[in-house]
């Protein structure tokens, strides 16, 4: 039996790089998604490096310089009702909001992935019970559910993150369940089972890596959602507590000074909108990039 004949057929080699490049191409062609990434990088840099470059501490109270308007003094974005530098607070708030966004996303994705994978892999009664649970959770308007929990706990960065994660994993679970369900019918999953692989091995090593694309898309949108949710809870007063700033509670505080100091409401709102829009754009771009049908 001649081996050279078959090795000659490796003409198709290099296809993976091609395929991957095509996804990257598709993503790069999505100008808004690229702009979204640039914006997020910018925001992260500003929020995590910026405070070191400012001469003001976000918590330093200077009651004599309260309500300084923006763009006229050393306080570039003005000061708040206690005379704290608005820009410094905005950046520190960004840290909190972005951190909550990412942390809640990671937790939600992990939870959703595990539940979705278990439901999709085992199917049957377990799968049905888990997915009905997912359906039921989705019936609750998210803010109602989040507030109901948030109102009864100790508000703090960690607890808020957990609450957001606990109420936003369902989409991920649905995506993963559908993926795993179809993947586990594929022969390579059967092969893995035949090799004596444990369920955990099959789910996490064989199947999940093949579902990573849709999970990444869901994760990106989840960050956007988590940032938005944090701002909602904090705005309604059940979220991050002072003096720690978050974009949501800055807006909450700004509400009563709408006439006197409208800039206090302007900047945090803009920051939230920009961050959330960016993540939504990235998610959109990723979705397109991972969908080969859109190649033309």
């Amino acid at each position, binding site marked *: 039996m001649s081996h050279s004949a078959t*090795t000659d057929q490796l003409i198709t080699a290099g296809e993976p790089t091609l395929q991957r490049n095509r996804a990257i191409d598709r993503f790069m062609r999505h100008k808004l998604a690229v702009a979204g990434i640039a914006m997020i990088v910018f925001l992260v840099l500003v929020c995590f490096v910026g405070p070191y470059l400012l001469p003001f501490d976000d918590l330093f109270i200077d009651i004599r310089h309260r309500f300084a308007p923006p763009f006229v003094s050393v306080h570039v974005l003005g000061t708040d009702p206690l005379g704290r530098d608005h820009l410094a607070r905005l950046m520190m708030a960004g840290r909190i909001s972005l951190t909550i966004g990412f942390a809640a996303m990671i937790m939600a994705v992990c939870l959703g992935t595990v539940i979705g994978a278990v439901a999709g892999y085992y199917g049957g009664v377990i799968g049905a019970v888990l997915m009905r649970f997912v359906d039921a959770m989705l019936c609750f308007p998210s803010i109602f559910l989040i507030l109901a929990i948030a109102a009864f706990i100790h508000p703090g960065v960690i607890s808020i993150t957990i609450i957001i994660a606990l109420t936003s994993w369902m989409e991920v679970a649905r995506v993963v369940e559908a993926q795993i369900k179809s993947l586990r019918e594929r022969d*390579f999953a059967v092969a893995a089972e035949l090799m004596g692989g444990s369920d955990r091995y099959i789910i996490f090593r064989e199947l999940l890596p093949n579902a990573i694309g849709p999970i990444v898309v869901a994760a990106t949108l989840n960050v956007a959602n988590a940032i938005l949710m944090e701002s909602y809870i904090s705005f309604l007063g059940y979220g991050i507590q002072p003096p720690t700033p978050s974009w949501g509670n800055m807006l909450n505080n700004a509400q009563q000074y709408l006439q006197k100091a409208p800039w206090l409401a302007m900047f945090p709102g803009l920051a939230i909108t920009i961050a959330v829009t960016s993540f939504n754009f990235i998610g959109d771009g990723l979705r397109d990039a991972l969908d080969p049908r859109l190649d033309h």
Partner: protein
Amino acid sequence: MNTPRDILTVRDLKKHFTIGSMLFGGRKLVKAVDGVSFSMQRGEVLGLVGESGSGKSTVGRTILRLSPPTSGSINFDGQDITNLRRSALRPIRRKMQMVFQDPFSSLNPRMTVGELLTSPLKIHGLSTEPGARQKRVAELLELVGLSAAHAARFPHEFSGGQRQRIGIARALAVQPEFLVADEPVSALDVSIQAQVVKLLLEIRERLGLAILFIAHDLAVVGYICDRIAVMYLGRIVEIAPTAALFSSPRHPYSEALFSAAPVADPKVKRQRIMLTGDIPSPLDPPSGCSFRTRCRYVLPECAAAVPPLRELTPGHFKACIRDDLTLQNWDGKLAG
């Protein structure tokens, strides 16, 4: 039947599925496999042929315990594995492997060839010394006609035939004694089919493993198998050594299958036997002999009872009540 040389004995294997919703329209029973018995010797290649839907793949997968059988028994390598739990099955899995029909879906696209071949080793804790696994991977790749350099590549970088070789290499990685080859070449180009069949034969000779070769292509089966079992609607209707079956089929369904196979040798002139009607729905199989609705030789008695598998000559069994038939064989001649 159960001699020490037997690696596999299957008795009255049944696999039924239910479909439909629990609440509405009631559940329906599909008898995909309905009483199959056979045994295989070490090193033997047994062909399992039949139209699609006849249950041959289900037989293969049930034997491998990919799903639990409804009833019957499976004895593998002297051990009853019919009702073993998954954990108990794990050590046995090392001895039984499978080659899949579709070389595209049977390899995890996210793993390199090297990872594909080492993961069974890792699972079973084989070749644990450093470097041993790479060596083993190289060995396996060489064995199936690829080079060690291919280990770093991903499955989609290969052609269908090459992928099937990788699939075979993976099956062989744990040094099994029994292989189920589920239509391993039917998805491949004809030119490549021959290469893969040749490879399987070569491996069988070198490693001496038993192969259950599932196919609908009689030519390939005839080429590779020692014995052949013909399945129809979940049952074996005829089982015989290859030569005997090809020269003198005894079941009307075997005759019809032969007549429908494409002819490679232009000298052979076969009368084409058209089977009337579709294969009956397994949801509602005919009473008695399930082939009777499409059989040219049908008698009223055929509807009475399921005909048992009877031994006509040593090693040649069939399930048909009519012994008075003279049927056309592979070469288009009427067999005595």
